[in-house]
Every structure is written in C-alpha cells, then in structure tokens.
C-alpha cells in the first residue's frame, strides 16, 4: 500500500487480476463497496459502476487477454469531481481489436435504429456508454487496449434531484495496489 496524493484529494487504486471470469465477482464487490464508502456518488452509482467494471473486464477477458495473461483495473477518484475507471488488456486474446476497430464498432452500435439481435454486444454501448460522461479507447504501447471511462459527480447529480447525499463524507484513502 502506498500513501500519496492525499494533499490533492485524489485516490488511485490499481488491481491486476488473471484472465479468468472467476475473479470478476470480487472486483464487482470491491467496486460497490469502494464507491459507497469512499466517494460521494449516490448509491445507485455504486451499482452502475459495478456494472461498468464488470462489462469492461468481461470484454478484456473475452477478447483482449489470453488465458494465463492478466488484465489491469485502475480507479482514480478525484474528490468532488469525478471517478475514472480504466481496464487494460494485453492484446494477446483471440478476439483482439485495435482501438480504431473497436471505436468503429462502438459507433455502429450507437447509431439510431441499430438493432441488437444477438445475446452479446449491449454492454459497451448500452451500459458503459450510457452511464459514463467520457469513454476513451487507446492502444497501449506494449500491446492491447486501454479503455477508460469517466463519470463526473455534477453530471451524476443532475439526474438525481431530490436525493440528498449524507453529510460527512469520508476522506479519500491513499493509493492502493492489489495483485490477485
């Protein structure tokens, strides 16, 4: 555990986990508890971030990182400003795409009238896209993709009129690095 950035009121947590869906429920639980206990987002956003992280990790495992490889999840919380979540894969997966290809796919699926006919394909557009303010897809220099989403607290509250946040929010915790 490293302590840093407390003066800037910024919390950074990085988690590295094996390419296996078995571990994702633990990341979901962690996300739910971290957002509830550490940020001043409304509770429903804790569940929404749980879904965002789940969808991004599943995509990274399914397409981006081969079994035996890993994925890296990073949370950056800026107090009273935003939560940024990034998921990185290694580009060793069977179904890997580069950033431009994934961006094209995303744009196609975002188009009005696009019909989702299969079992898959809704997560990135309908969940990650709808519940974030910024969605950025980048190629990693070492291979693979880094997908980052940002949600600003002021925008989260626009749609939460009347749902007052309890006072006395906890101070952001120090940077934490976990390896599973």
């Amino acid at each position, binding site marked *: 555990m490293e302590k840093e950035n407390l003066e800037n009121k910024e919390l950074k947590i990085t988690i590295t986990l094996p390419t296996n*869906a*078995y571990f*994702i*429920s633990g990341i*979901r639980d962690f996300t739910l508890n971290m957002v509830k206990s550490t940020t001043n987002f409304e509770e*429903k956003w804790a*569940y*929404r971030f*749980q*879904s965002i992280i*789940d*969808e991004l990790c*599943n995509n990274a*495992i*399914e397409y981006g990182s081969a079994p035996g490889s890993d994925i890296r999840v990073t949370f950056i919380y800026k107090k009273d400003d935003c939560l940024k979540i990034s998921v990185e894969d290694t580009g060793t997966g069977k179904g890997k795409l580069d950033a431009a290809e994934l961006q094209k796919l995303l744009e196609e699926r975002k188009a009005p009238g696009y019909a*989702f006919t*299969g*079992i*898959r*394909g*809704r*997560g990135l557009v*309908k*969940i990650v896209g*709808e*519940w974030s303010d910024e969605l950025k897809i980048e190629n990693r220099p070492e291979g693979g993709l880094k997908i980052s989403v940002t949600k600003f607290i002021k925008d989260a509250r626009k749609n939460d009129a009347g749902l007052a946040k309890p006072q006395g929010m906890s101070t952001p915790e120090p940077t934490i690095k976990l390896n599973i």
Partner: protein
Amino acid sequence: MTEVRITIEDASAGTNKNLKVIHIGGQLDESNVDEKIQEIYKLLETNPQNLYLVFDLENLEYMNSKSIGYLTDIYGKVTEGGGKVAIAKARPNIADILQVVGLTQLIQSLDSIDAAKTALAS
C-alpha cells in the same frame, strides 16, 4: 463460479394458461449464465407454444449484459410461440440496468408476482 439459483414453479392451477414462475436468485454473470440459462431454454423446448412466464427477480442481486441478451432472446421465442413474459419484483439496481438497455420497453416490470400474472392474463 458465482452462485445463482434458478427454480421453475408451475403456476397454472386456477388459470387456463400454461403459466410458469421462474425464480432467479444470486448473481447472473459471465461465469455462470451460459450454463444456468439452459434450464430455461429446456423449458422453452418442452413448451414451445402459448407459454406464459413470470421472472421473479426479488432475490437477483446482479445481472450482466449477456444475461439481458438471453432474457431478450427468451422473450422473442416465447412471444413467437404466442406466449407472454413479465418481470416481477426486480430490485432497484436490476430495474435500473433493465431500463438502460431498453428491455423494459419490451417486457413489463411489475412490483409483485400477482401483478405480473394479472398483466399476462390481459
């Protein structure tokens, strides 16, 4: 594998319909959905026509986008066969995700199993 429980209850008694209530509890995610959802597809295979389904989601804590994809597919198959589908007792986080993907535009989501049965009867 994350824990999920799916039980199918025959609720046809007292009605003139082939009505089943599917109780789903736990977490439906990437680690279990492909396997567990087959229990419902088996039901569809043995009841291809005029099947009326209520999904009781009271104890469902989490569902991912693939689970929603399966629900959409099941809805399509049931309605093709002349049946109907409704959702009952979804928790706020589940109702939220069903709404954001647009599933609540296809399938009615009700506060109780009785209300869902009534909706299917209409």
